[in-house]
Structure formats: C-alpha cells, structure tokens
C-alpha cells in the first residue's frame, strides 16, 4: 500500500448535544480515489470539512500530506483543493475573473496559460465572460471543478462532484477525474450518495451512518459481503438495518 495522504485518528465533532462525527479513524492511500458514502446527515460533509481544516474537530487528529491540519494547514493548502455544490464562487464576477483571483491566491506561475488549459479541458471557453451567477447548475459544477483543479492539487476533496449534472455530462466529468488521477497521481476523497459514481470511480469505500464508519471495502468486497448485486443494494441494506434496529430498540407508547 502506498503512503497515506490522509490519516484520520479518533475524529469526533460535536455541535452542542449533537454528535455529527463519532470517533472515526481511516487512512486514504496516495493515488487512490476513496468515497465517503452515506445518507443525508451521515457526517460526510462534516468529515470533509475537518479534513480541509474548515471545521475544527472536538477531538482527534487529521494529518494531510504529513502535516497536522489543526496546527500546520497552511503548509499543505497550496497542494490541495476542494469543490462543493454547496459553496459558490462570487456570483457577480465572470468565470474568467473568478479563476484569475483564485489563480493568484494559489500563487500560480503562468495564470493566463493555466486558466486557458483547464477551461479548455473542461469545455468552459465560451463561458469565460459570463458571470458565475448566470451559469446553469451544471455549468456551475464544471466551473467549480475548474477552480478546484487550477493548482493541479495532489489531494482533491469533492463533495458530490456530479450533483446537478445531466447523465452525459456527469459521465464525462467522472472520466475526466479518472484521467486526472492517472495523469498526475493525485489522491481524491469524494463525499457522495451516488452509487454508480462510487462504483465506477472509487477503489475504496467508507460507508458512514450517524457519524460513524459502519463498513469499509472495495465496491466488489462490499457487494460480496452483503450478498447483493449492486452497491446501491448494499447501501439500502445497511440503511434499513439501522432504521429497523432503531425501531426495534425504541420503546413503544404502551411500554
């Protein structure tokens, strides 16, 4: 196994009485694409935010590219990037202006050339003068991906990377991410509840529920372990077992 790019140890996040992430530990090996798979409120985005250093853990540690993210995140931030459909770029700035600002923030050597290359690869050339706010949801997703790839990150964290994309564009984006990984050797951690996406892209899947990692393996291993045909069936199996368990454990009104 290659060196771990992300190491998470006993990571916990509490918001008052709510435990969003409950003492999880995992590693992500270099050059792999790993998925955080789970339903709404499972703790995927919270985990991503703590890996990025956007959110401080209540306890536990996150090490990225050998650096403790609580104390030395600025040592690795130029080498990583992030995209999420839930965080916008400035809406009134054009796509070209947005990418120029971020290219300077990342200290890129040849701003114009780099922006030209990445927007060419993502088919965004005709949208450069459009303000971000006027782009369609799918165009915004590709634009955010362009921002996330500007610095050719060694580690890319993606929150639902193909949300809002039509099946054809989503398929193209998945292919692009695979080729990017193959070309650069980059590592990716993806939060998703799109099973087809996870099956296609990811060599390692961490299944989260109620803030915990409830299972882990390759898509094939998980499918075999649960005796199912697809990862979606595995996901539903786990989700319904937990709901069923909770129903059985819950006291009835008569009790």
């Amino acid at each position, binding site marked *: 196994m290659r060196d771990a790019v992300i190491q998470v140890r006993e990571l916990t996040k509490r918001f008052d009485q709510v435990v969003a992430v409950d003492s999880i530990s995992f590693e992500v090996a270099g050059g792999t694409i790993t998925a955080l798979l789970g339903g709404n409120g499972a703790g995927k985005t919270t985990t991503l935010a703590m890996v990025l250093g956007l959110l401080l853990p209540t306890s536990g540690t996150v090490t990225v590219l050998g650096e403790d993210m609580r104390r030395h995140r600025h040592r690795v931030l*130029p080498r990583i990037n*992030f995209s999420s459909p839930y965080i916008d770029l400035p809406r009134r*700035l054009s796509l070209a202006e947005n990418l120029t600002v971020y290219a300077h923030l*990342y200290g*890129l*050597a040849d701003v114009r050339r780099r922006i030209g290359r990445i927007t060419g690869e993502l088919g965004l050339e005709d949208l450069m003068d459009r303000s971000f706010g006027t782009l369609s949801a799918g165009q915004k997703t590709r634009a955010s991906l362009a921002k996330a790839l500007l*610095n050719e990150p*060694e580690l890319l964290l993606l929150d639902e990377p193909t949300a809002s994309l039509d099946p054809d564009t989503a398929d193209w984006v998945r292919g692009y991410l695979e080729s990017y990984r193959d070309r650069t050797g980059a590592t990716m951690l993806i939060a998703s509840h799109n099973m087809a996406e996870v099956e296609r892209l990811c060599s390692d899947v961490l299944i989260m529920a109620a803030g915990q990692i409830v299972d882990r393996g390759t898509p094939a291993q998980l499918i075999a372990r649960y005796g199912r045909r697809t990862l979606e069936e595995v996901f539903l199996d786990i989700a319904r077992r937990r709901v069923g368990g909770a129903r059985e454990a819950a006291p009835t009104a008569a009790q």
Partner: protein
Amino acid sequence: MTALGRQAAVAGAARPARWFSWRRVGAMTLRYLYLLRGSWPRVVELIYWPTVQVLLWGFITQFFLYHSSWVMQTAGVLLAGVLLWDVLFRSQLGVSISFLEEVWSRNLGHLFVSPLRSYELVVALTVMSLIRTLIGVLPASVAAILLYHYSIYELGLPLIAFFFNLLVFGWSIGLMVSALVLRWGLGAESLAWLAIFAIAPVSCIYYPITVLPEWLRVVAWALPSAQVFEGMRAVLVDGVFRTDLLAAAVILNVLYFSLGAAALLYSFHVARVRGLLLQMGE
C-alpha cells in the same frame, strides 16, 4: 518529470504558503475591484452620497454666512466636517461591504481552503476600503471647490493626519461589524449601515465637544473621530494644529484597530469551531 514535480512547476504552489503574501492580498483586492468595475451603479452610489452631502451643507453654509458672524469666520467648518465625516463613513462601509460580499456569495469556504490567511483578508479589506473612500470623497471635494470655492486641501498637511486617522477608525468599526456578521450571521447585516451613526453625535462633527453634557464628553474624548474633528476646528478657527489631539487620536486608533482585527480573527476561529464557513450565505 514526476507527477508531483509537474504540479510544482505548474502551480508554484507545492511550496508551503508564506506567512504573508502581497500577491494574495492583491488577488483579494482584484476580486473587489472586479466587482466594482462590473457594476457602474455601485461606482455612482459611491460618489453620489458624499456629493449630495456637500451640496446640502454647502447651501446651508452659504445661508449661515449671511446670518452668523461666527460661521463667517469659519465658513469651512461645516463643509470640512461633511467631507471628513464621509471619510469615516465610507472607510467603515468599505470594509463591511467587501466582507459582506463574501458572505452574500457564500465564498468564505473556498477562500479558507485556499492559501489565503485570515489576516491577509483583513489587509485586503482595508486596501479596498481606501480605494472606495477615495472614489467617494475626491469628487465631492472637487464639487465643493467648483460650487462654493471651498477647498478642503487648504487645510494642508493636517488634512493628511485627519484623513488617515478617520480612515483607520472606520476600518476598526468595519472589522468589528464584520466580526459580528460572521458570529451572528446576516441578521447583523444592518449594523454595516447603522453602526457608524451611533457614534456620530459624540464625534462632534459640526459642534465643539463643550456642547455635550459633561458626562458625555468622556465618551467623546475616547473616540479618535472626536479628537480629529476638534483638531479640524482648531486649524480652521484658531489656525492652530493641535498635536496633542493628533497623538491622542493615533493612540486610540492603535487600540481600536487592534480590537477590531482581533475581533474578526477570533470570529474566524469561532466560525471554524461552529462550522459557519460552510453554512454562511444568503
């Protein structure tokens, strides 16, 4: 070339981020300038209010000129007060509005996973505030010359001291307002427009501090703005540049700016504890 080596060549970014980068500050300033460039109503709005103020108070001054011997001696007091008050108002608004732009556009999450440091953002906000203040106040000062033959530049070197002290005090209030917005969300947004007017009566823009009741004078003397306007009147009425007032304003500004910057930086820390950087937005 290895993948990582190629990345380093492309990005220049595989190096650890330096503790401070003027390029990153410039990038954020560029971001606000793009916004201004893309919207002429914003530029017009910047110029509009200071010019309207000058017009209004210019006519009032002209009226007083014929009815008050005191004002006759100090015809510039009102117009200088208007222009310098707008320096304070615009500089505060320049910081608050630029910060609110990040909140409105839900961009804080992207900014804080980039190599940008929170104190670099603070510097960028102050640079943009200076630019916005100059855009607003310079045309108004020219209007005063053209319409009333009053030039605030006749204050000479003291004008520079007055300008920068008010500018820095405006930054301090703007940073505190930004900290409150970060902490309490857009519910605190209206503070960006209201906060500065809370100190207007005790800043003694158009009247001497002695007009205030005794107990309120203590509050006034604790504000750099009151020191500046008192100093302005000393120059205009008595022809004296009061270095004691200037020194007091500078000391107070160091204190208030430190408090403002510390409040915003602490709010960033709280936002990272509470997960606000991902949630905040319209």
